């Protein structure tokens, strides 16, 4: 029965670049070019060198958030999670390098615990992700204050040197971010579990019909996310000499923004890890750029909002339809009038 007519089915290109990745990549290049022309101080090596670690941290948090958003969820427990990791690795060792490793293990244990709570509530009790992660966030902040009493402590010298070190001219945080990215890409594209995870995000009904364990994967997304927040928190603790207990707060909105900018839909679907990471770089550089232009903090926020709005509109607006409607409005007005003539 194999007809020869369709034997020409193409295997397709080996590497494909998603629309989201393309968009954010081009935007970033334009932004850096613009920075170079309009605000050279924002692209000086020293500025870049100090900007990169923060872009890396945002990228890591964004990767975590992406995993929950691609399962049509959202994680509002980012602030609590990041803050808790910071507090654990700075308070527990209290400057003692030998206690750093146990502290990191403790932070990871807490992260897994928080992820399991979120995952159970959302995947198995079917709670709305907004409510569940809102509750968990408060829970995590309870732990933050329970451990730190709200007083910051200096990080250990070992963590400081690891996080602030530069190898081959590149800040260490970048290596961590690239490592995280590689892990996500490898998991999603190269393992059975990852491919299933991605398919469940793309369409839970199809996955269910195919016999996949939808709830388990949806729940585990929150565990993976917490591990990324934890890594980001530890890096943040090392980079900032004396981190405060509420540092996670400032990452809540950007974590969603970079995912959305990267082209991952808030309704779930395919996750775009590379685009998310580049979006983090874009957003951080946008900050630097506007800062270098000398405008104040307020304008920076407005620019961020505009970038987000445009970023979302690129994906939500049906541009082909808009074009055809516009074309019709411009050329075919007479025809429209005729067809809508009252006939009674």
């Amino acid at each position, binding site marked *: 029965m194999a007809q020869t007519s369709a034997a020409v089915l193409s295997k397709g*290109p080996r590497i494909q670049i998603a629309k989201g990745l393309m968009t954010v990549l081009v935007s970033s290049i334009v932004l850096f070019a613009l920075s170079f022309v309009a605000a050279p101080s924002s692209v000086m090596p020293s500025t870049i060198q100090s900007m990169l670690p923060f872009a890396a941290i945002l990228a890591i948090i964004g990767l975590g958030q992406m995993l929950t958003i691609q399962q049509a969820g959202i994680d509002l427990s980012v602030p609590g999670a990041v803050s808790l990791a910071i507090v654990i690795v700075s308070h527990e060792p209290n400057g003692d390098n030998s206690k750093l490793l146990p502290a990191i293990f403790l932070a990871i244990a807490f992260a897994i615990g928080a992820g399991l709570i979120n995952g159970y509530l959302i995947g198995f009790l079917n709670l709305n992700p907004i409510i569940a992660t809102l509750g968990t966030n408060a829970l995590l902040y309870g732990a933050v204050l329970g451990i730190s009493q709200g007083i910051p402590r200096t990080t250990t010298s070992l963590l400081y040197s690891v996080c602030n070190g530069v190898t081959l001219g590149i800040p260490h945080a970048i290596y961590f971010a690239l490592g995280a990215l590689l892990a996500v890409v490898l998991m999603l594209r190269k393992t*059975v579990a990852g491919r299933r995870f991605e*398919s469940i995000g793309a369409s839970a009904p199809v996955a269910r019909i195919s016999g996949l364990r939808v709830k388990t994967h949806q729940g585990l997304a929150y565990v993976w996310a917490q591990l990324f927040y934890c890594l980001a928190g530890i890096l943040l603790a090392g980079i900032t000499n004396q981190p405060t207990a509420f540092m996670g707060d400032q990452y809540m909105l950007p974590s969603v923004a970079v995912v959305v900018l990267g082209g991952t839909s*808030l309704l779930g679907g395919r996750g775009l890890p590379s685009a998310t990471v580049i979006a983090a770089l874009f957003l951080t550089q946008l900050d630097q750029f506007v800062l270098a232009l000398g405008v104040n903090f*307020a304008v920076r926020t*407005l620019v961020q*909002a505009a970038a987000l709005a445009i970023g979302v509109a690129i994906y939500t607006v049906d541009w082909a339809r808009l074009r055809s409607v516009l074309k019709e409005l411009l050329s075919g007005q007479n025809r429209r009038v005729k067809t809508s003539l009252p*006939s009674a």
Partner: protein
Amino acid sequence: MAQGNQNTVVMELRSISKNYSGVPALTDVSLEVKSGEVHALLGENGAGKSTLMNVASGTVAPSQGELFVHGDRYESLTPALAARLGIAIVHQHPAVMKDLTVLENLQVALPKEIFKGRSADKVGAELLERVGLRISLVQRVEDLTIAQKHLLEIAKALATSPKILVLDEPTAALGQESVALLFGLVEKEIAAGTAVIYITHRLAEVRELAQVVTVLRDGRKMATSRVSEVSDSELLSLIIGRELKSAFPAKHKRDSQAQPNLVVRELSGDGFTNVSIEAYPGQIIGISGVVGNGQSQFLKALAGQSDFTGSVEINGKASSARELNGAAALMPADRQREGVMMRMSVRENSALAALKKFKTAGLLSRGKEVDSVHATLTSLSIKAPSLEAPVSALSGGNQQKVVMARALLSDPVVILADEPTQGVDVGARSELYEILRQASKDGIPVVVASSDAKELEGLCDTVYVFSRGQVVKTLRDEENSEEAMIEAAVTSTAKSIKIEREIREQKLGNETFGDKFRRFLKGDYAPPALLTLVMIALGGYIASTSDTYLGEFNINSVLVLVSALGFVALGQTTVMMTGGIDLSTGPLAGFLVVIASFFINDDSPAVSMILGLVTMIAAAVVVGLFNSSLIRFVKFTAIAATLTTYIAIGGLSFILRPNPDGYISGDVSAFVNQSLGAIPYAFIVLVAATFGMEYLLRRSKWGWRLRAVGSNEESARRVGVPVTRTVLGAYVISSLFVFLGSVMLMVQLGVGDASQGVGYTLTSITAVVLGGTSLMGGRGTYVGTLMGAVLLTQVMNATVFLNLDQTWQYLLQAALVLIAAIVYGVARNRKARLKTA
């Protein structure tokens, strides 16, 4: 043949054609409908009956042709115009909102005039009485059986005293008693001079009810005749005389020695009962019947997707649902939703169920995957741009081949195909038949369910005819013919499976106190009642340990805090009723205070203060419109839209007030802070607003529409709710409540500070959730939100009296939210589970 004055033509459809992207659904169909007559429309699935009636009721505009209603000519109708012309349609799928009560469903859909001058309860009870629906008016529609929902839909249609009544397969879901009652109603309508168009599959119903019958086939009119002048066999031949367009592969030659490779014994489950089938190697089994008679549920159960009783044996091995799930390959009927992942590539879609085969050293090998998928797809003669093209770019037939490829690649123990050729062009159909036949030859049992009897006749060896969830006929080998199948289906007198609930419904008319109490527990007002108990317990406990707790000062300061949060939360509730969320409330509250700090100062004149308030209100309205426009017109999700606004407003605040400045007038503060004893006036206003909104939510068209949109947008649109306007309104109202909250915040802060207010977003959501309002939309209360706001503030205040530190504040807040969400959620989930049981 005119029969006196009564039978005048009220509607005429003339040469109606309708194409869907080039594919004709109707071709040159004309129909005359006379008053006082039942005009039956007969035809197979996909013959064009529903499309024709959608044209008649205004939901679909014809590509060609014209309509005459009461003698006036129209090119097309809209639902609103059709309603004005006295055309009412009972859809095959009831347009009811599950979160609204029975009465509210009537009120939101029907014109005001029907309820004029009399109590709504009375009118509602009368309407239900008419269709013999014995249920409480205050019952939520979610708790109704499918039959009851259909009766409710019929009650809605009859309420408008239509001139032309369209019934689209009204008896498909009804039990025997209800059918008799419905026929009585139709006869009454006829006597009153209404024209009735009756779509059906069942010849018996045509005989019993109709005077005139029109048969459609493949979108064309075959004949119109008086029922008395045509025989059953003539009608049957008109329905089924479809030309055989696709070629079928040769059938299996039975081997008398063979043992069956699929044996299903007395399988019962949701929607089907006591089904026994068997298949021999090389045979294809057909499941026939009118759509919605349990065929799909049966296949899903065979695929292990739902629980069943009875046994399934494949190649002699008994399998449980758990074992079947994933091992059996199900090709679902709803290809768009359950069949393919639209935005994923052809390769990813095909490989989904077979990923484990492509592993090399733990990781997926792209080469293996591509080769394997490519080979299978090529053998299926798929036409696709490439393996990496998104499935959405493929035609229906090729999408189905992708589903088929997924099934074949997974090495299934059985292939279950539900409507495998629906929406598939003729050429691809024959290929799909070949593929199924080949799979069967290879020894995999194949079961095909289809509403196209011709297809089953050509493709299958043994066919089981389903009616109302039971096998009413088994057709083996030579017996297998389209005529036999259709005859079995349309002459079936099988009764619906009596569900326990349906028996229970009988006594719901007069509820006992116990019933009412149970309904209260499941209802919207259980959460606020629960919160009140918690509040009293907590308050009582702290009061016993502290003298100052119930003092005027403490009560006053708590209630002042409640006021600001309460107003913002009321706004948030409104938005959540529509199924949305407004993240921008917090920053907006802060922004409005910043605006106020420019106008409402100690030395400003009264004019300036008024101007300030007007500016604040205007800003709030603009923000509300901006949010909702992004959502409705630019198709942002509610989160993305209000997150954008959240960030932008924060920026605007800092532009206006880089540093805290602009002290708020002391007189104004004193005015706002006035109290009646310990109770601030502001709190009294809040309570009044809460109850006012609650009243509107329950008793006004606005409230019903708001919840209808949140409950089911599509149904809301069908009953005539202006969805976009309702959503726009909800976000504007939310912003206006934020304005009221910002007045309280302004007094508390006393200065324009851009960094304040942000926290109200999450706190307001918390209060709403505590109050039991669902984030899914459609249900909730304003009273609950108020209680939530009070409890939240009370708990924060309590930590002071109990000497608990900040840690506890967070932990208690978390405990409140999570416990509330779990308790409410579990209660609702249990209800859902009961319904499917």
